[in-house]
């Protein structure tokens, strides 16, 4: 496949627009060749994951671009950093690491990226429309943009995200093209109790199951109630993009490219059909906990960053209650969402003794003080990564169970939630 470049692409590749543009276009062209693309496409926005500090290589790359005069050509948002810039007292890590993380953040701001510091850019006021070509990194944002918004992004990772933002160009390949967006593996969800399908707890569990089985294939999921809200789809997609490499999922009756199973499959037969039994769902749920409980140290909510509706729910659950003094309860959200919600919700959450975390996540930044006991979460993504990242045991439960446990000081289950499964 020959790659056709526009005159402007070629000029930038030759360095006529400066060193940063030359380097960025070099990466885009190398990627295009690897993906056997025949041309590049314009994108209308970018979301950068590379702003999270993992070591010197990320900083070296960002400084090459920023010091080389790089300026983003499309509106570009920033993912979480490894600092809570609004609540610096929460940071319990070492100062040298914080300094490097700050330099990395500064480099991206210098290039014109918006300091949004959220893993949920789809919760910001400006978000891509159906069919829009974008270049997003951060696995949960990718699967949300593709699946829930119907925008089109390939699975971009660190380094290439900023290159797409600087050039406004991506390979015409992968999930950018309609023919690559049809479902490949069909999940048929068997009968589950109505109370469970109405609960937030089911969707991260299903995502965890789907990701493991789908791997990097595009799943189609049928048998769920129609019009699942964005928060449930967010939790499901984030889980599937952790246990698997899912960048697009079709949830029949809920996501825009899946009005029917046939439409989601593009009229083709699936290569594999998985009949999901209640027993498989229970096994996936149990796989998300590394311990039944015992001593509980902390409860972490908000991975991905909580939406306004999830903050309101948390405020309602905490109203008039006190977090047990032995437990640290953290609620993570984006700074823009936090600034837009009712101050009464924030008062209810903080008044109960919980801490609101912005700009980062509790599994990447040293925030939790006491890690001697287990940590409880309502997020399959948090449950997937935290045992490796933090070395903690994790207990998965619904948001309601998490809040009840934080108040009680020990793991507290809602016995009715999984009854009859």
């Amino acid at each position, binding site marked *: 496949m020959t790659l056709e470049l526009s005159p402007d692409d070629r000029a930038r590749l030759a360095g006529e627009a400066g060193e940063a543009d030359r*380097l960025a276009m*070099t*990466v885009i062209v*190398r*990627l295009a060749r*690897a*993906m056997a693309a025949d041309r590049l496409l314009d994108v209308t926005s970018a979301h950068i*994951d*590379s702003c*999270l500090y*993992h*070591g*010197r*290589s*990320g900083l*070296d*790359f960002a400084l*090459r671009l920023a010091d080389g005069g790089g300026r983003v050509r499309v509106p570009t948002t920033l993912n979480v950093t490894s600092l809570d810039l609004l609540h610096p007292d929460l940071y319990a890590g070492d100062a040298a690491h914080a300094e490097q993380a700050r330099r990395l953040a500064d480099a991206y701001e210098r290039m014109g990226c918006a300091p949004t510091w959220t893993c949920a850019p789809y919760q910001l006021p400006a978000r891509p429309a159906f069919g829009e070509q974008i270049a997003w*990194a*951060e*696995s949960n944002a*990718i*699967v949300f943009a593709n699946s829930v918004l119907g925008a089109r992004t*390939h*699975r*971009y*990772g*660190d*380094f*290439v*995200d900023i290159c797409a933002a600087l050039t406004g160009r991506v390979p015409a390949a*992968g999930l950018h093209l309609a023919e690559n967006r049809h479902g490949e593996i069909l999940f048929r969800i068997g009968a589950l109790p109505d109370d469970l399908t109405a609960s937030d707890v089911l969707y991260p569990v299903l995502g965890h199951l789907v*990701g493991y089985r789908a*791997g*990097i294939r595009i799943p189609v999921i049928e048998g769920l109630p129609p019009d699942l809200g964005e928060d449930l789809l967010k939790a499901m997609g984030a889980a*599937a*993009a*952790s*246990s*698997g*490499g*899912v*960048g697009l999922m079709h949830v029949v009756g809920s996501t825009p490219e899946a009005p029917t199973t046939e439409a989601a499959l593009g009229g083709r037969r699936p290569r594999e059909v998985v009949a999901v039994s209640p027993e498989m769902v229970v096994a996936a749920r149990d796989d998300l906990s*590394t311990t039944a409980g015992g001593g509980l140290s902390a409860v972490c909510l908000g991975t991905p960053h909580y939406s306004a509706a999830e903050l309101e729910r948390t405020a309602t659950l905490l109203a008039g209650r006190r977090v047990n003094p032995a437990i640290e309860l953290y609620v993570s959200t984006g700074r823009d969402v936090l600034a837009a919600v009712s101050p009464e919700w924030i008062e209810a959450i903080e008044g109960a003794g919980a801490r609101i975390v912005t700009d980062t996540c509790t599994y990447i930044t040293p925030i939790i003080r006491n890690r001697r006991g287990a940590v409880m979460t309502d997020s399959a993504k948090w449950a*997937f*990564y935290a*045992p*490796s*990242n933090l070395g903690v045991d994790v207990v998965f439960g619904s948001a309601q169970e998490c809040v009840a446990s934080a108040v009680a000081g020990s793991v507290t289950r809602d016995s009715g939630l999984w009854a009859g499964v």
Partner: protein
Amino acid sequence: MLLEGRGVGRALVLAAPLSFWGGVDAESGVIIDHRHPQRGEEIGGRILVMPAGRGSSSSASVLAEAIRLGVGPAGIVLQHSDEIVMLGALAAEILYGVTCPVVVVDAETFGGIVEGRAIAIDGSEVTVG
């Protein structure tokens, strides 16, 4: 072929996909994913043979960082194309001039690779010892 180059090493055949982020300690090259069946193995100097990566976008950074620190794989053989893996290796090449080639092979070649046997990647050729 995702990233051309030369690499020689013993095969480390992963029984499950691996996310470098949350799955590998970039400073030691040790697999730390507590769910992974090969937790504790070192990827440094090995030809990493895996079906594909997992979701995380940050895997590119962790791979680049492991390569910078000299504990990255000598090469990566995939069964399915994974651009996040390729981009981590490309960034390390651009920044530090160290190439960790990344190749995609067909199911037959992939299935024929035996744990611990020598593998050579040269350009787009994969030779299984």
